């Protein structure tokens, strides 16, 4: 297989100017400039037909990377090569004109994205079909709801059949049904051998779509490998912890479903099962086990540890700590991580902690959103008018 995208030592420097970019200031040498490397020494090869997910905090260089891949911006240093036609699903709806009808915008946007007039004409029905806005095709798009607008824009973009597809935070479009449809369509595109680069904060989607993950941190590649690894490293980074310093216990966590099979997807109302395995270097009596669950980027939502002296047992080299944990899943839609730590008998010293194990929770459509299901029961004038908790858990 040939490489579809190749970056070697790519860096991008932005010059930040203080003061307005005015001719006058330049002439008087008034403006001082400051340099910022948005990306530095990035080496990345994406094979033809491969799908990769790029994650990282805001300002880590994701957007700059996409801009360079799409050809809008040139790298300051290094070499960048993209083979084949590129369609950016970046900022869907860019180039849509509010005064023009949906029909007219489909034509213009299709052409902007690199289709020929004949191709737009050929795919027109498929695009309209996909967008589900047939009735409003001859209405100026300024009268569209934001959902309709995005659906049409996405429909055009996803029908451009490029060799390289760049996707930036656009799959959070429309309702759940439409999102699923988009995902399905992405899979078709994937199956056709299109190279896909996805940038998103929707880790669950990433986990489902991209086998390979790249984590950017301050403009550099901090992780490149299997997506679970990237997600785990991302969780660690978001929680501000650097794993693996001076530990005498190495903790592994496996997430299991009710049948004991490994999984990372759980439904609200069910059980999240963990199998913990900790190898310890030194003799360890009556360890204390700590468990922490964190929604991505929010810090601990739940932390618990076993009581001091509640468990009496001696472990050491060759005699690992084996534990099972059951968590009642009251979490709502989103991505979470769970970390298990092993402490000494006093609970005062942490001997080692696992990498955050990433999992996703999906709730049934409708009802509550947020982090935790508090099963609200609301009655007005003594009559129960809403019972989302019971509906969900039924």
């Amino acid at each position: 297989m040939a490489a579809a995208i190749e970056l070697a030592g790519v860096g991008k420097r932005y010059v930040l100017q203080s003061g307005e970019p005015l001719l006058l200031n330049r002439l008087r040498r008034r403006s001082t400039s400051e340099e910022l490397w948005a990306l530095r020494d990035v080496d990345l090869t994406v094979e033809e037909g491969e799908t990769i997910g790029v994650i990282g905090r805001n300002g880590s260089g994701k957007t700059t990377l996409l801009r360079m891949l799409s050809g809008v911006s040139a790298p300051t240093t290094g070499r960048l090569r993209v083979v084949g036609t590129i369609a950016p699903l970046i900022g869907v709806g860019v180039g849509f004109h509010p005064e023009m009808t949906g029909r007219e915008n489909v034509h213009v946007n299709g052409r902007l994205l690199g289709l020929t007039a004949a191709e737009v004409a050929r795919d027109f029905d498929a695009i309209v079909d996909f967008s589900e806005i047939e009735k409003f095709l001859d209405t100026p798009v300024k009268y569209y709801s934001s959902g309709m607008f995005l659906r049409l824009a996405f429909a055009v973009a996803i029908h451009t059949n490029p060799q390289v597809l760049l996707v930036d935070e656009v799959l959070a479009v429309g309702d759940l049904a439409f999102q699923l449809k988009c995902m399905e369509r992405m899979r078709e595109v994937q199956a056709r051998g299109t190279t896909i680069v996805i940038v998103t904060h929707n880790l669950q989607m990433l986990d489902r779509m991209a086998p390979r993950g790249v984590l950017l941190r301050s403009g550099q590649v901090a992780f490149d490998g299997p997506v679970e690894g990237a997600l785990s490293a991302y969780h660690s980074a978001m929680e501000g912890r650097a794993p693996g310093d001076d530990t005498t216990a190495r903790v592994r966590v496996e997430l299991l479903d009710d049948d004991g099979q490994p999984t990372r997807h759980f439904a609200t109302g069910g059980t999240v099962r963990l199998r913990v395995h900790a190898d310890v270097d030194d003799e360890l009596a009556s360890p204390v086990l700590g468990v922490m669950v964190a929604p991505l980027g929010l810090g601990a939502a739940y932390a618990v540890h076993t009581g001091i002296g509640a468990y009496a047992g001696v472990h050491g080299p060759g005699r690992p700590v084996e534990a099972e944990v059951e968590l009642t899943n009251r979490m709502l839609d989103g991505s979470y991580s769970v970390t298990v730590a092993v402490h000494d008998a006093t609970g005062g010293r942490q001997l080692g902690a696992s990498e955050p194990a990433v999992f996703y929770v999906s709730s049934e459509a409708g009802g509550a959103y947020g982090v935790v299901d508090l099963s609200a029961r609301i009655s007005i004038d003594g009559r129960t008018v809403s019972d989302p908790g019971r509906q969900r858990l039924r």
Partner: protein
Amino acid sequence: MRELVADVVRRRALVAMLARQDFAARYRSAVLGLAWTVALPLLQGVVLAIVFTRVVKVQTDEPYAAFVLVGIATWSYLNGSISTASTSVVDGGALATKLYFPRLYLPAVAPTSNLVGYAISLSIGVVVALVQTREVHPQLLLLPVAMALAYLLVLVVSSLMALLHVFFRDVRYVVTALLLVAFYGTPVIYPLELAGDLAPFVLANPATGVVQLTRWCVFGQADSLGAALAWTLGWTVVLLAVVLRSYGRHERTACDRL
């Protein structure tokens, strides 16, 4: 640079399409639509015709109303297109930072979509000229050449200004100032022969060649046509070279400043 030119040529249909969209969108929301683009220069022409025949008397070989209408139609096109297109790269930033296409297309949109209004205004000038002079000159067939020259001049000036505007945001005011001066430095409201001492400066103004060529097509004669045309063509060729060179070099860093 060769790459840029090839790219621009290969995807030229895009300009026509963007221009059509720009045109349709601009006039769709205004009730009188296209009438406004024609009515405004026409009004300006009528006012000037009244002022310079009743208040100040300007001597022209041609009937003054026709003379000034033809001039104003041309000037309005140059002026309107250059002022819109000079900010086009910054204005189109939302698109330009997301999608790659030759950046030269952005400043080409307004001059292209304004061609329609230009053709109509100029036609009105021609009709008035025919009515007033009762003469038809064979050069009239060359009017499209004059329009093409105007189009080309507008394209190179706008493209250069649009790129400069990305780096220096005060360029838009510089453009406004230059256009203000250029209006009086172009024989729009007065004939070239009245320029006197200032004639060399007026001749060197690239807009003069376009206006004179247009007058020659309509009235069958124009002062210092050759010299004026030489200046215009010279400017156009030099600016074209500068534009191609600077877009080739800067178009992929320009968007970092949008």
